[in-house]
């Protein structure tokens, strides 16, 4: 039985262009989140997410619904684009670490603001210093993730931030299940040590 993504791809292959738009709407946020967390740059993340969807669009006629998972295919394309981007950045020596970390601090991030308002307790007063601490912790986490070696960062982001299963991660990264589990455990241990001052 086909899942919704496969059904949408099938509809698109039959000429329903709205199906592709729906696919994009379903996956745009997780994809941007994945890329942004992985390359640690929100602006480039949107460009790369667009490039991923363009590639999917171009190769859509070759997709066989039911044979592969749309989600893992999408992450696979995005992962390759991210790796290229990181390689290009290293070559240009322009690897920044703080774009995502500071994304909410300039007041432009509407979602972050909405989150703050939504999460603020209704009865007791909103405590800015508590929120500041939380934000510092988030920045520290993002920085620590960015500092992880790529081979550990990638499975960690896919598992703990994107919520993919071990099998899906193995499919995306083309790794054996044991290797995937071991890398995720190693990444979490590294992160635990990096976050020691905060936890």
């Amino acid at each position: 039985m086909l899942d919704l993504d496969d059904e949408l791809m099938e509809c698109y292959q039959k000429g329903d262009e709205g199906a592709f738009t729906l696919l994009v709407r379903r996956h745009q946020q997780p994809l941007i989140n994945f890329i942004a967390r992985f390359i640690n740059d929100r602006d480039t993340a949107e460009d790369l997410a667009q490039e991923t969807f363009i590639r999917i669009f171009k190769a859509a006629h070759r997709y066989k619904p039911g044979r592969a998972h749309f989600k893992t295919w999408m992450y696979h394309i995005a992962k390759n684009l991210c790796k290229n981007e990181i390689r290009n950045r290293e070559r240009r020596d322009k690897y920044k670490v703080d774009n995502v970390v500071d994304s909410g601090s300039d007041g432009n991030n509407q979602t972050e603001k909405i989150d703050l308002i939504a999460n603020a307790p209704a009865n007791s007063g909103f405590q800015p210093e508590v929120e500041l601490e939380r934000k510092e912790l988030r920045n520290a986490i993002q920085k620590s993730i960015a500092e992880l070696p790529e081979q550990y960062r990638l499975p960690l982001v896919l598992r703990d931030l994107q919520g993919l299963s071990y099998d899906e991660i193995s499919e995306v990264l083309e790794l054996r299940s044991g290797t995937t589990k071991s890398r995720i455990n190693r990444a979490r241990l590294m992160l635990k040590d990096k976050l020691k001052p905060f936890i």
Partner: protein
Amino acid sequence: MNCLQAEEYFSAHFEDALDYETLQRLGEHLTACETCQQEYARFQESVKVVQQLPQIEPSPYFMPTLLQRIAEEQRGISGVKGISTADWRQLLDVFRRPIWAFSGILALILAVTGTYLSQDGFLFDRDSRSAAVTSEPEQIRVVTPPVEIRRTVGNGSQFRPGGVLSTPARPLQQHYVLKQVSYANASTGGGL
């Protein structure tokens, strides 16, 4: 189970994916080792805070820009088999690598130089160029004595018992043009 082995099972324990035997062994170790207890508590905490990171939302321009790009791609596909912008970008990405960029520049220089020199006649018309530095050629006629040429016979028309056909002797004249280089205008005043 020692501490290093225990660490290997932290994730599986956190996700409740350990088999009963391993779970018992790990449990025994964690009960006995206070350091591992603390490390596991910190491990749990760090995984939880990572999992609670907020999702990054797409900007409001994401979807319109993407749809515009898709429309461009569609025009590119259905158009006159032109190369799309993305394809050009992909093609030019190759030249971001220094070796490719260098090779490309070198090839370009060689192509330009080759074209220039061939137009100038430097490569393919040497005689005219060498004539420019020589004085008027002096023609010397060399007459060689008649030579008898012996050939093996292909048909039996004038076959002789010796298997050799003698052709009528005719003088062979070859004309050689010798070019004499003049040093009159050289700075040595004609001397070497």
